Structures are given as C-alpha cells and as structure tokens.
C-alpha cells in the first residue's frame, strides 16, 4: 500500500507541478491580502515572460496560453493525489505503518538523535541495519512534515482559491487573510514540496538510485539490499 500510493503520488505530483507552473505564466505576479491585479503593487514578481499581453513583464513577447488544459490536469491530478493520500493515511493508521515507521521511536526523540543522523550523513557512513528496515529520525520528521503539514496546507490554500468552495466555507480563505494571500502561500508551500522532492531524490541517489527505486517498486529488493548491507557491515 505504501509503495502503490507512493508511485501514484509521484505521478500526480509531477502533473500538478507541470500544470501549476504553466498556470503561473498567465500571471507571474504575487500579492498579499484579498485582492491584487496589474494596477496594484505586487508582493513580488517572478522574472519570467507571461502568457498574457496585459501583464507587464519587461519581455517583448507573449507566450502561448495553456491555462485551459493545465487547469483541467491540475484538478484531475489533485483529485488523484488527495484520494491517494487519504487511502495512504487511513491504511497507515490501520496497519501500523504510521506508528511503527513514521512516528519517532521512543529512544530517538531528541536533537542529539537528529544530529547523530546528520553526522552519519556527513561522514557518508554506511546505512546501519535498523535504518535499512525502517526510516531514521530525520526521515521520519521530514515525511511526517510533508504528510501532515505541507500536503494539508497545499490542499487548504488551493481550495481557498475556489470562489464556490469559499461560499460554502468562508473561513477557508478568511483565516488565511484573503484570496491573494492564499495564492501566494500555495506557491510557497508548493516550492517547499519541490525542495523536499529534490532532497529526497538526492538522498535516494546517494543510497544507490536504481536499487532503491527497484526496492520501492517490488518491495522485495529491499530485503536483498538489506542483507547485502548486513554482510558489508559484518565484513567491517
């Protein structure tokens, strides 16, 4: 269940990232508060050309418009990601994955334990047996933050941009401080998710990209990998 939901999430995340990026091109200006448009001061502007000629960008040309299909893809992928996430969280609660593998283990709830993991990373120490079977404390904190902080935030700020959803649940946007704040936060939370993916993939690459990917697909290679790790530590 963890593996299937992981790969569905990977697919929908890339669909969301691609379509979201294309949508930003139609208005690469961000604001704070309820309203904002080309007649008001932006909080910041991304220095890219736009797909609309009404947006001042400093570029002498206008990009083609892909907003229609991008938004359709964004929403379809969002539905897939949200439903998959729901299945993952419910299954993880049910089968103990959350309790056993994600919630920090009793002996590891200290800064010292976190630092020990980083120290291991910096020394490029070989993975120990326990880490090959489950996640270390840094992984647990990172995964928990993504699952229970960044994903809920990105869903919330996304929904807050829907005028119809806001009519039913006005607090969704009012608590954030306005529609444009929701849009800006949606952009920042997405950037944090991208940062997580970059670090995550980099760590996988350091651990041996294809063996890890194979393990995440089949679940079996993990055992083989584990025993070879055990052997190598035994040799040492």
């Amino acid at each position, binding site marked *: 269940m963890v593996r299937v939901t992981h790969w569905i999430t990977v697919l929908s995340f890339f669909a969301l990232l691609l379509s979201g990026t294309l949508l930003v091109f139609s208005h690469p200006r961000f*604001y704070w508060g309820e309203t904002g*448009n080309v007649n008001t001061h932006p909080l910041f502007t991304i220095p890219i050309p736009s797909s609309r000629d009404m947006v001042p960008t400093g570029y002498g040309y206008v990009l083609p418009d892909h907003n229609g299909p991008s938004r359709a893809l964004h929403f379809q992928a969002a539905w897939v990601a949200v439903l998959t996430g729901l299945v993952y969280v419910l299954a993880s609660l049910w089968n103990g994955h959350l309790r056993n593998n994600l919630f920090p283990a009793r002996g590891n709830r200290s800064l010292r334990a976190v630092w020990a993991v980083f120290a291991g990373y910096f020394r490029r120490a070989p993975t120990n047996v326990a880490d090959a079977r489950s996640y270390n404390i840094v992984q647990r904190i990172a995964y928990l933050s993504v699952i229970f902080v960044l994903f809920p935030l990105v869903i919330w700020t996304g929904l807050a941009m829907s005028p*119809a959803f806001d*009519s039913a649940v006005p607090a969704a946007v009012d608590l954030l401080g306005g529609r444009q704040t929701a849009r800006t936060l949606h952009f920042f939370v997405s950037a944090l998710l991208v940062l997580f993916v970059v670090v995550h993939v980099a760590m996988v690459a350091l651990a041996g990209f294809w063996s890890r990917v194979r393990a995440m697909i089949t679940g079996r290679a993990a055992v083989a990998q584990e025993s070879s790790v055990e052997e190598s530590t035994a040799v040492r």
Partner: protein
Amino acid sequence: MSKISRRKLITGGLAATAGVSGLAAAAVLSKRYGLIPPDCKGIFAPGETLTYAAQRLLTTHSLAREFPRSMISKTPFANETPHFNDAFKLHQAKGFLDWRLDVGGMVAHPTSFSVPDLKSLPLRSQITEVACEEGWSYVAEWIGTPLVEVLNEVGVLPQARYIVYFSIDPDWWDSIDMADALHPQTYLTWGMNNGDLPVSFGGPLRMRVPRQLGYKSVKYITRLTATDNLKGFGKGLGSPEPESGYAWYAGI
C-alpha cells in the same frame, strides 16, 4: 504464503467489486441529480465531473463572500477591452438607450426588456470579488437585477435546466445551471460602485456570477435562453470555453 495471498485476493476482490459498483451507482445518481457538466468529455472528464458534482452538493445555497465598503478596490482591473463590432458601436453612439435584453426559450412569456425595464424590477447590490482564472482579482460593488427576478417575470418553465446568455459579440456566450441561475447573487448588472457600469467592465449589461471565475461573468448581454439541453448551442459543450480546454463549470 498461500494464506496471505488468498486473504489479499479476497480483500482485493471485495474492494474492486465495491469500487466498480460504487462508480456505477455514482454515475446513475449523478445523472439523475444533474451532477454531470455538459463538457464531460475527453481525458479530463473524471476530474471535471468530480469537481462539479462535489461543489454542487456542497454549495447549492451558499452565498459568495461579501465585503465591507472599505474593501472596494481603488484600482479595479477591467481586463482586455474586446474588439467592438459595429452593432455595439452604434449602441454606444446612442448612449445605449436602445439596448435590449431578449428572454426566450423555455419560458411562458418571451419578453424583451430595456435597461430601464430591468431597473423597474427589484434591484439589489452586492460587494463581491471578481476572481480571474489567471490569478488576479478585485472587489467592487455590483448593482443590478437578480436574474431570478427576470426569470420569474417571464415565467421560466420547470423543465428548464440551464440559462444560456449571449453577448452582443456572436462568439461570446456562456451558460449556467439553475442552481446558479436562481441564486440570489447572480445579477444582470447595470451599475458599479454607485454609478453606471462602465463599458470596460461590461456596461451597459453584464452577467455577474460571483461564485464562479470571472470568465463566466460575460459582458454586453443581449439575449437569454432557457433550455433543458445544451446540445443545440455551439458545439454542445455549454460554452465556447471548453473548446480551448477551459472548464464550463468555473466554481473551481
């Protein structure tokens, strides 16, 4: 090993059966309760339908957020001014005195309204936000005649499921379902911020659908048609927007 795979097989089989029958039941129910959008076609049909159905169930009677007068944008943005055709320019030269709104289709008494006729019906105002699909927005006071008042005046028939509205530009039209058409904040708008509705913002007459993105609020409205089927309009997708991939339902 065989024990585990048998259990997995049974659980998987049950889940798949439940999923398939659930989908089938959902399809029947959503068709019956009008939860399938007219542009339900192509690879994005599941996403569009889920969004429309979920929001219809959640928002049928909810009101778009209204703002205090102090939050009216000092610098609203009218967006690109369309290329006006000769018919519009003629109306503009005559100060829009002859502007008509023709209401027909599935109604008991097809009627042609002038703007003063509309103003003689109960009028309302709302301070709501225009949220463009591109991401920008502004808040303004909109003064107009609720569409429901016009529909009551012409006696819209109970079998009508959509209201199609046409701009003076023949390529610019759109439609909404009855949940939005009968919604108290859906206006035929002729005033903005205590004055007449400026041409750049859609004057003399603009449809305002505040629970959907700005592109559903079509400018320069001249004609309304009540219908039970959108097949006969354009390519049958509810508006020209879905032809370039934009969703017919833009509550988002």
